[in-house]
């Protein structure tokens, strides 16, 4: 595989299509030699990023698409999930299960936390419209940690 090869995907802003991005990402990661465990982590992170792009970024507007750019290099797979919204600046916060169980915290609000917990790098970028994205990285050398 050439260093820097990249695959681009455009998805409709419709819930369910995150599963297409999961399959595409899993297939790239499998070709790169990632283990099944890491591929499962990546799939969940990519799904959550796409769901956020569809729901929050593009607000389910069927005229907008979600971009997914998967770039390989020798030791890492980078995935950018791009939407047309204003982006997020707030850092993900860990869910507080006790507060959720007492109704003091929305039962939702776990997506960004899971993304950050499951991949090696996760960064959210606020951009001009059509340029907000989250950038995820999984590294081959982190396989055995």
């Amino acid at each position: 595989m050439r260093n820097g090869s990249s695959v681009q995907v455009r998805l409709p802003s419709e819930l369910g299509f995150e599963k297409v991005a999961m399959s595409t990402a899993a297939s790239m990661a499998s070709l790169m030699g990632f283990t099944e465990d890491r591929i499962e982590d990546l799939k969940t992170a990519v799904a959550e990023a796409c769901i956020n792009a569809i729901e929050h970024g593009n607000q389910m507007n069927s005229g907008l698409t979600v971009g997914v750019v998967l770039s390989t290099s020798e030791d890492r797979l980078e995935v950018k999930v791009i939407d047309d919204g204003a982006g997020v600046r707030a850092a993900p916060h860990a869910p507080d299960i006790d507060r959720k169980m007492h109704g003091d915290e929305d039962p939702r609000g776990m997506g960004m936390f899971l993304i950050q917990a499951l991949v090696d790098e996760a960064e959210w970028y606020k951009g001009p419209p059509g340029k907000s994205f989250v950038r995820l990285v999984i590294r081959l050398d982190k396989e055995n940690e």
Partner: protein
Amino acid sequence: MQTATRVTQRTATAASGNTVSILAFGGDISSASKDAVLGAYHGLNEAASHVLLDFTGVDYINSSGIAIVIQMLLEAGKAGTQAIGIFGLSAHFQKVFTMVGINKYAAMHKDEATALAAV
């Protein structure tokens, strides 16, 4: 493009002799699953004091689906009388459920036999 959630209900007898209500999920557990999942839970006999959630047949779960499971646990906690257990999750989703803390409020088991032995 979201796939339907399937829920079937059955009962089983635990090692302890207790009767256990099992809600077996199939398909997707996502934001579209609220009515299916909570509806099935509300349909359980109120006397059911032991409930197991069977995820064996689930193809896909996302964080909105996990939020619905938390909401069910919250309702069970309010009722105060129900012990809820979980089985049939892949190793990956056992990890994810643990990351968000669900294991504090629902015992997680590998499979049905282990779950029934523990009730």
